[in-house]
Every structure is written in C-alpha cells, then in structure tokens.
C-alpha cells in the first residue's frame, strides 16, 4: 500500500539505525508518547536495531489506559440504565472499571453497542428513536474532531436521544506533567504524529524550550520511528532542544485548521483525572455550555464518587515511562490480557499488552 510500504522497508530501516549508531557518543533516553508507536516499536523489533545505549521509554498516549475508573463505572452505569444504549469503540469494552467491564455488563443484559466511528452512534440514534444513545467519547486530540462533527450532526438532525460521555484527553498538559516531575528521566520526546495532524505542533515549542527537551513529531511506521529517533539523537548530541517534524507528509505546523476551529467552538478544556497518574489541570475536554444538552453527564444523574485503583497495578508508573511492564510483579502472571488488572494490559495501545503480545517478558 502506497504511503505505508515505503516506511516498512528494511533497507531504509537499517540505514537509519546505522546512522543513529554513528550519531551517538553517549547513552540517551527517549520517550515515545503514543501507544500506537509503542506497539509498532515492539511489533517490528525496533529495539533490536538500535544501539545498546539508546533506551526507549513508553508514554501515556493510550486513551483507553488513562480513562479513570470513575468514568468507566459511569459508562457501565449508563449501559445498565433502562432505555439507554451505550455506544463505544471496541477498545474500551474489556477495560476493567472498579467492579466489572462493559463486555461483562453486556453479558448480563446491559445495552452496549460497538461502533467504529462516532457517526455510527448518531445513525443508531436515528434508527432507535425510543432509546437514548450515549457515545463513550474516549480519545486524544485525534479523535475529538470526529466526535465534534457527530454532535453537530445530531443537533442538525434535531436528535433529542443522542449524547456523549466525554473522556477526551490532551497530550501537551500530560507531557508537561511528566517532564516536570522530579523523577523524570526523559531526555527527548517523540510526539504523537496523528495528534499533531489535528492540532499541529506549536503547543510543543514552549515545552521543548522550558524543559530543554527536543521534541520530534513522528509517524507510526518503522522507518518513521527510526528517523524520528535519529532527529532526536542529533539534537541531543548537538545540545539543541527544538521541535522538529519527521512526519511532514501528514503534519503541518498549524495542524488541521477546520478541525481545530470546530473543536474549539464546541469543547472547552477541563481538569481531568488520568488513571494511575492523578488530576492534570486543563488536560481534558468537555462540551461548552451551548452544547451541554448533548453532554450525558448533564442529561443523566450519574454517580460522582472517586474509586481506588487495584493496589497491585503499577500502570501509573508504566504510563509515565518510570517502569517497564516486565518490572511489575503481576505482569504475565496475575495480569494477562484475558484477566487484566489494569487497562494497559487490555488496550491495543497499552504498553503491557504490547510487551505481552510480542513476548518481551524481560529486559
């Protein structure tokens, strides 16, 4: 496939890996933000191509993983409410809440519909006028424009039975929180390509400057990842901390103007709790008052209490790059994709699932 196969070519990958080795005079530690990148790194064995001094640590870019237990519990509560159908991306169905998950709740009669696009949830609302359809809006900046358009379409169609439960999260505030932590060991960052396709990368420029950390906007294929790493290593070796764009075929500095304009018109930043990490100021998005009629939290009376994480799960440390999945005592024993303790073992973007799936049970 064009625009994919070229970036999976082994010759190019080896040339880039050799160049990284040539450029390095000392060890470096780089975080890739996006869970999709983490999976590609493990799937294609990128770690084996890299010189031994280069450590990749995995970031928080797995929206399913960082969705707090309380919100998953609220989604389950909605699905169990008479007359309500909860529409969700498939990725969310097996993520454990405090007591159960959406799939298990569905087996016991809760109404859960799996959708590929938020527009499908709107179509469902058109078809089932006697039901309230709630879309579980999980995702980073990449996913928000689609949800915005779905809500807009619901208003245009005059639908009174469509709303969203927003769990949307934003990368820059989380990156600030991670880099600003006294325990941070991150020297360079690969920014998530598709988040920047929407939002651009202007927001990362003050972050690179403030923390003295190079940020390279990077794609998802092996050649993209290796080129992103090379650009990052060159900056580190030269003592630079700038924002560079490896993924120029899909990312412009200003992002997608149309998408950003609609998202800003409809959503506003709110403080959001990240599972395993805690509350990060202005790191989530909620519908603005003019659109609140489509906010499930305004439409339904939902539980509000906080819930505790299972004590054995170290997902917060994994999501901040402080620990590798195999450093968890429960990894691959008491925590597996079939019986997960935490979300990173379930999600197709979770670091624990990637290490489990590709057989990395040790360093």
């Amino acid at each position: 496939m064009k625009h994919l196969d070229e970036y999976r070519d082994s010759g190019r990958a080896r040339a880039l890996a050799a160049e990284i080795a040539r450029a390095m005079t000392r060890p470096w530690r780089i975080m890739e933000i996006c869970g999709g990148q983490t999976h590609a790194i493990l799937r294609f064995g990128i770690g084996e191509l890299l010189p031994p001094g280069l450590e990749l640590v995995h970031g928080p870019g797995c929206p399913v993983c960082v969705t707090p237990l309380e919100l998953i519990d609220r989604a389950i509560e909605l699905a169990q409410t008479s007359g309500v159908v909860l529409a969700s991306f498939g990725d969310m169905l097996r993520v454990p809440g405090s007591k159960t998950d959406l799939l298990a709740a569905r087996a016991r009669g809760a109404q859960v519909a799996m959708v590929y696009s938020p527009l499908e949830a709107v179509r469902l609302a058109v078809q089932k006028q006697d039901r309230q359809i709630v879309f579980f809006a999980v995702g980073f900046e990449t996913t928000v424009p689609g949800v915005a358009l779905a809500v807009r379409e619901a208003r245009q169609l005059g639908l009174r039975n469509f709303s969203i439960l927003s769990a949307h999260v934003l990368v820059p505030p989380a990156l600030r929180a991670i880099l600003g932590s006294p325990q941070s060991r991150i020297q360079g960052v690969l920014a998530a390509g598709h988040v920047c396709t929407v939002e651009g990368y202007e927001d990362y420029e003050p972050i690179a400057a403030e923390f003295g950390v190079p940020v390279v906007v990077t794609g998802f294929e092996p050649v993209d990842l290796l080129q992103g790493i090379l650009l990052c290593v060159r900056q580190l070796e030269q003592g630079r901390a700038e924002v560079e764009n490896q993924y120029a075929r899909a990312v412009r500095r200003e992002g997608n103007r149309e998408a950003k304009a609609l998202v800003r018109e409809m959503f506003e930043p709110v403080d959001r709790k990240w599972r395993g990490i805690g509350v990060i100021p202005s790191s989530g998005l909620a519908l603005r008052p003019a659109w609140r009629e489509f906010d499930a939290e305004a439409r339904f009376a939902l539980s509000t209490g906080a819930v505790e994480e299972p004590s054995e799960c170290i997902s917060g440390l994994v999501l901040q790059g402080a620990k590798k999945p195999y450093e968890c005592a429960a990894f691959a024993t008491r925590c597996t994709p079939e019986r997960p303790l935490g979300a990173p073992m379930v999600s197709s973007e979770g670091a624990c699932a990637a290490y489990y799936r590709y057989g990395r049970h040790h360093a």
Partner: protein
Amino acid sequence: MCLAIPGEIIEITGGDPLTRMARVSFGGVVREASLAYVPEAKPGDYVLVHAGFALQTIDEEEARRTLELIAQLGGAEEEGAP
C-alpha cells in the same frame, strides 16, 4: 486509538462541505469516510483516515522529500521485506 491509515479517494459523494463523504480504498478494501476536515481533497488524493474521518491529505512532495533524505544516508538501495 490514534490509529489512522492512508487511503486513496476513489469517489466523492454528499453535498455541502460538512457532510461531504468519500469512498476510500485502503489497498483495495473500500470504506466510507467523511471529508469534512479536508475540503480541498479530490479523487486520486491520499487521505489519512481515523475513525471514519479524513484528518489530512497526504502531502506527496513532503513524502518524497522524507524518502530522499533517507536515501542520502546510503544503504536504502537494499529493498526488501521488514
């Protein structure tokens, strides 16, 4: 969840800019996608599709430049499977 795949626009359907849809081919597998956020996209263009929405048109010139930069490193001539 931020997975987005490049595909070629085969045919554009739908009227006003915010409801414009397309049939997009991903190596022969054809799916519908909204073109609301890529108003300039036309048949034959490659777009990056995420959850039913085209998020950006692939910039062919930038793609060529990226591959050229890598070719300058040498070693890129050994084409093959990963």
